């Protein structure tokens, strides 16, 4: 189980169909679809990876292995782009 925190240089804007993320240090921006935006909102609530996966299984028509793959991929991407970082649980 891993908990993440949003880095101070990250800004986000949530919209009805997704979200836009800014990384002020690397000067890069990113778009998230509706599911990605939901994952980001759970990160804002300091959810762990397992809590995020469980939430997606509850809220969307998706099996746990598929949800886990998608969540872990997005979390890896967000870490690589320095938008989030791991923290101790």
């Amino acid at each position, binding site marked *: 189980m891993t908990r993440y925190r949003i880095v101070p*240089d990250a*800004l986000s*804007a*949530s*919209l*009805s*169909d*997704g*979200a*836009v993320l*800014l990384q*002020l*240090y690397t*000067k890069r*921006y990113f*778009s*998230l*679809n509706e599911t990605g935006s939901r994952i980001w909102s759970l990160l804002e609530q300091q959810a762990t990876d397992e809590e995020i996966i469980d939430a997606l299984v509850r809220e969307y028509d998706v099996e746990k292995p598929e949800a886990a793959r998608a969540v872990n991929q997005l979390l890896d991407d967000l870490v690589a782009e320095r938008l989030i970082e791991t923290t101790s649980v």
Partner: protein
Amino acid sequence: MLKLREHARYYVHAAGVIAPGGRAWLLTGESGCGKSTLTYALARGGWPVLGDDGVVLERGSQGVTVHGWREPLRVSIELAAWFPELSQRKSLVDWQDERHRVDVYAAFAKRATIGGVIVLERGERDVLCPLPPTAALAMLVRQSAFLLLTDDHAGSHLALLRDLVECVPCFRLVHTSAQLSSVHATILQASP
């Protein structure tokens, strides 16, 4: 630009024109997408111009206000085939400029409330289609060079752009030279 941002006014790489009825349309997109060309086409039809390559946004009482950024409107002399009056300005063309542009006259306005956003793109046929808010915001972020500065204003700058795309209709207009004569009708068709 930074002083403007300190005062909650945000520069964006976009054109602004005012439609009959008084609402402004923001025309944005990558360099060369046709902002100046279509702005001039609209100006020739009597639509006041707020800017053809940059305008300033500010939160207003009725939405987002766009302030004019008054620089000379510049269009390519190659447009003389559609706009014959440009032929008279041939001696003023900047031939060092790769687009062979010339300053042209337009009636400028100071400010207006934004009624819609259009992302321009040149293409093989004319298509106007709704643009989802996230795609519209991503384009405005891309065209807002001063947004990504690490000062205390980035959050409010981003929030204004988000509120803009959520409160006005946003479209993508893929256009050909046919829009030089019909862009007025295209935008009016998109008006709520």
